[in-house]
C-alpha cells in the first residue's frame, strides 16, 4: 500500500488509530485494523441501514396515513442515508473497536425497539 513506499518524516493521512511499527512501514496490526474497519463499514453499516429501514417501515404507517407498501418504499429509499454516516463513522473514529461499537450499539437499540413493538402490538 501507499505507506509501504512512502518513507519520510511526513505523517500519512489515514484513520488515526493505526500505529506504524517502523519508519514508514505499515505494521500487520495496522492492516488488520483497516480490514476490521472495512468490515465494520460494510457489514455493520448494512445492518444499521437495514434495521433503520425496518423500524421506519413499521412506525410510519402508525404515525401517518400511509399504506404499508408506501412506507416500505420510503424506508428503503431513506435507508442509504443511514448507511452513509455509518461508513464515514467507521473511518473517522479513533479505533476499529469504536467503529464496531458505534454501529452495533445503535443497531441493537433499533432491533430492540422493533422487537418490543412487534411483541407488544
Amino acid at each position: 500500500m501507499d505507506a509501504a513506499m512512502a518513507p519520510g518524516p511526513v505523517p500519512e493521512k489515514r484513520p488515526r488509530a493505526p500505529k506504524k511499527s517502523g519508519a514508514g512501514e505499515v505494521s500487520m496490526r495496522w492492516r488488520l485494523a483497516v480490514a476490521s474497519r472495512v468490515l465494520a463499514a460494510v457489514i455493520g453499516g448494512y445492518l444499521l441501514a437495514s434495521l433503520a429501514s425496518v423500524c421506519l417501515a413499521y412506525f410510519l404507517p402508525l404515525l401517518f396515513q400511509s399504506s404499508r407498501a408506501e412506507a416500505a418504499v420510503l424506508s428503503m429509499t431513506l435507508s442509504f442515508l443511514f448507511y452513509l454516516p455509518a461508513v464515514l463513522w467507521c473511518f473517522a473514529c479513533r479505533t476499529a473497536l469504536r467503529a464496531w461499537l458505534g454501529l452495533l450499539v445503535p443497531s441493537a437499540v433499533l432491533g430492540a425497539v422493533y422487537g418490543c413493538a412487534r411483541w407488544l402490538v
Partner: protein
Amino acid sequence: MKEGFRQAMAWLHTWAGLVFGWLLFAIFLTGTLSYFKEEITQWTQPEIVPHEVSDAVAAERGQQWLQANAPDAKRWFIRLPDERNPDIALTYSPANGGFERKSLDSVSGQPVQGRESMGGEFFYRFHFQLQMPHPWGRWLASVAAMVMFVALISGIITHKKIFKEFFTFRPRKGQRTWLDGHNAVAVLILPFHLMITYSSLVIFMTMVMPASILTTYGSNTSAFFDDLFPAFKSAPPVSETAPLASIVPMLEVAAQKWDGARVGLITVNNPGKANATVALGSNGADHIPHEPGTSLVFNGVTGELTQQSSMTAASLLLAGGMYGLHMGHFAGTLLRWLYFFAGIGGTAMIATGLVIWLGKRRLKHAKSGVLPFELKLVEMLNVASMSGLMLAVVSFFWANRMLPVSLAARSDWEVKTFFCIWGLALLHAFGRVFFRDGRTAWREQLILAAALYCLLPVLDMLTAGSYLWGSIRQGQWTLAALDLTALATGIFLAWGAFRFRGEGQSVIASKLTPTGSSRKQDSRQTLTGGSELAREGVSEGTTVQEAR
C-alpha cells in the same frame, strides 16, 4: 479533532476512489452512452427508418402480428413507436417460458429486416449488469454506487474551500492542473453527481435493501409488488378461450383519462383466454417520475375499463422521481445533451481522480525514475480501464459496420469484439507499462482510439452511406449526430495523445515553474492538507531541478 476528521475523510476518499475507480469509470462511461441508447440503436440498425405512425395504427399492427404468430403466449408486451424509437417493439413470453423479442416496422407491420445488433441496449445493460450472471452484476454495480456515494461525500468534506477553488484552474501545471480539474468538474455538476449516485441505489433498493419488505410482508414478497404495481398482477390462464378485444378503443379511453398523455407500453395478460386483461402504461417521456404503477387495466374480452391506478403517494413520487431523473426518459434533445455532458463530467471526475492518485505517488520516485510494482499495476489498470475502454467502445461500432449482415449470432460477435479489444488493450497496457513506460502505453492506445473514432464517420459513409444520406434528406439527424460525436471524440483523444508525446516524465515536470506567484497559488491548495503540500512542494522542486 476537526482536522483529524478531514484527514480521515481524505484517506477514505483516496482509497475508496482508487479501489473502485476503474469499475466506476466503466459504469459512468457506458451509462453516459445510455442516455443515447435509442439513438445508438438507430445507428447500429440503420435499416429501421422512422416514420410518423399514430399510436392506434401501431397498436393494431402489433396486436395483429402477435395474434398471428404468438397466440398461445402467456403475456405480450407492445412498446409503441415514438420520436426516439422508430419500431414497434414486441416482447412475448411463450408457453415454455423465457422471452422472445421482435421488432416490427411501423409502416408495414412486418418484422424489420435489420442487421442483428444489441445497439445502445448493450451499453445500457453493461452499465448495471457488467456482463455478469444475474444478479451478481447488479449487486456489484450497487456496491460500486455505494462506494461512489461515500467517495462523493468524503470528497466534499475533504474539500475545505469549495466555492473559492471552483474558480481556480491553473493549466499546464501537471499535478495542480489535474487537481484543479478534478475539483472543478466535481463541484460544477455536484447536484448531478449526487442525484445519479443516490438514484442508482434507489433503483435497485428492493434487491439490495429488502429487510423492510421482509418484515412487512413476510416471505410473500410478491404481495409487495402487487400492492405497488397492480397492473402487473396476472392470474393464471383459464382454459376457456375468447377472442381478444381490439386495443384501439382502449387507447381512446386512455387519451381521455390521462388528458392527452401518451401510452407507452401495452401489456396483455393471458391473450386469447377468457380472463385476458390489457394494461396500458404511460409513456415515460411525458413525465419526470418513473411510474410503472400508473396504469389502466381493461377486461381483455369485453374491452371495459376495470381498474385504474396511479402513483401519487409522496413516497412513491420520491422514489419514482429519483428513478426517473436517473433514466432521463423525459429529457428532450437539449436536456438529453446536458445529461450526456454531465455524464462525461462524472466520468472525467473519476478519471482525473485516478490520474491524481498515481501522479502524486509517482513524484516520490521521480529521482530514481523506476516505479515500484504496485504503482505500475495501477498505471496499467488506468490505461486499460480508460483508453482501453474507449477503444472497446469504438470497436463495437466498427464491428457493427464491418461484420457481415447475415452472420449467425451477429450481435454476440459485436459484444465479443468489444471484450476482445478491451482484453487486448489490457495486454498492451501490461506490456508497455511493465517493460517500457506508461506514457508509451497511453500514447499508443490514444492514437489508435483517435484514429478509429475519427474514421468512424468515413466507415459509416462507405458501408451505410445510403442510410446516412437518406436520413439527412428526411431531416433526421440522429445518424449524422452520432458520426459527428465520434469525430469530436476522436479529436479530443488525438489531443490527449499529443499531450503524451515524448519519453519519460520530464515533460510534466518541466511544466512546473516554481516562481513566486505559482508558489503562492500552490499554498492555496488545501485538498490534502498542509503536510502533504509540504512534501509535494519538495518533490516537485527536486523534479524541476532534475529536469533542468
